[in-house]
């Protein structure tokens, strides 16, 4: 076994970190020691192959899912943070609903996502399971998660226009019916109790998104 200093010299020579004088002296040493020279050449060849076969960048399997899962985690953390400060599941839910991304203008995207939400399976008593989401507007990203504290499935629509300042969502009513799914509806109200938005389905299951015109 060679002393550590010789191993270190070989390593530094392979990595090209020797000074000119050090390299020259070491290569002279290699010329005088055929066994060391063979070892050095073998390791040099190995090192070149390592660089070839260990890519610095790799394709991430299911890259889009990778990103969306991170976004879901970030949304969950934000939700928890708000919950900790508000100490109220209702307040937290309203906080989400008041976010700019829940815009009345984004009816198409919201309709698509919430339609899926309304299609609850009868055995899913404790939560709604979102199997898929689709937004016709590619600028809008839809994602969902179940918030245990609020006991609600939170639907996040990112990329919609901001809610007009005068449209303050202050209340929400969810009407569910397992036997008559067509009458299930979600309504959003302002502080005066005026209905701002209704999300429902028609008799054949197509989504309906009814926006109440502004006062005036």
């Amino acid at each position, binding site marked *: *076994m060679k002393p*550590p200093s010789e*191993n*270190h010299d*070989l*390593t*530094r020579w*392979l*990595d090209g*970190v020797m000074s000119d004088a050090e390299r020259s002296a070491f290569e002279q040493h290699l010329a005088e020691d055929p066994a060391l020279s*063979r070892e050095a*050449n*073998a*390791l040099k*060849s*190995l*090192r070149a*192959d*390592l*660089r*070839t*076969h*260990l*890519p*610095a*960048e*790799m*394709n*991430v*399997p299911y*890259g889009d899912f*990778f*990103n969306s*899962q*991170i*976004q879901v*985690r*970030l*949304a969950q*953390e934000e939700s928890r943070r708000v919950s900790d400060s508000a100490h109220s599941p209702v307040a937290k839910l309203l906080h989400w609903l008041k976010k700019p991304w829940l815009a009345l203008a984004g009816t198409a995207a919201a309709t698509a996502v919430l339609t899926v939400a309304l299609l609850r399976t009868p055995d899913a008593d404790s939560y709604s399971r979102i199997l898929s989401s689709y937004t016709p507007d590619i600028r809008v*990203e839809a994602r969902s998660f179940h918030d245990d504290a609020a006991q609600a499935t939170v639907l996040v629509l*990112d*990329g919609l226009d901001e809610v007009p300042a005068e449209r303050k969502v202050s209340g929400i009513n969810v009407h569910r019916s397992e036997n008559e799914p067509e009458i299930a509806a979600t309504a959003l109200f302002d502080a005066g109790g005026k209905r701002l938005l209704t999300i429902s389905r028609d008799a054949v299951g197509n989504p309906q998104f009814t926006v109440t015109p502004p006062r005036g």
Partner: protein
Amino acid sequence: MSAPAATDPVEVTDIDLVKRSQAGDTRAFDALVTKYRGRIYAMTYHLIQNETEAWDLAQEAFIKAWRALPGFKLDASFYTWLYRIAHNVTYDWLRKKRIQGDGEFDDERTEHRAAAGAETTPKGDAAPDAALRNAELGARIQAAIAKLSAEHRQVIVLREVEGLAYEEIAALVPCSLGTVMSRLFYARKKLQEQLKDVYETTL
């Protein structure tokens, strides 16, 4: 892993995205994830040699980065900063795994018997096609890397994949420069032992 120059337009974009992320813009952060996920995933994959775990750890690294973003002062490139987080996340995972009995590394034990337990593949006929031979060699190198101890794999990845200087490796691990050189030497020797049939032909 060199930081791009301050005038590099790519880095300017990073700074913009980081600032927006720090202000809470998750879409800006998503753009950073898209940009660097391939490099972070490659690092975690090379270190632990398991696709599923590497995928999860890469995600964890980005989430930790998001949490730590408010404290990021832009005094290093975003990637350098992110890489350090990802490395720590991965190495913490490896440490826990070793505590749970899945690891085995001991410098004192392994460095003096580099050949012990080394596996070789019997020599076969030369592959008729260079591309096939190259692909086979790549697979064998990956398999050999997977058999290295976590510490040896770590220095090989940091040096050969990321191109870090000894000083950078020493700071990241952390350990002394002498330990970096020793680990590099023995890691390469162990790889050479495992791929003996390939590298004996060069003798």
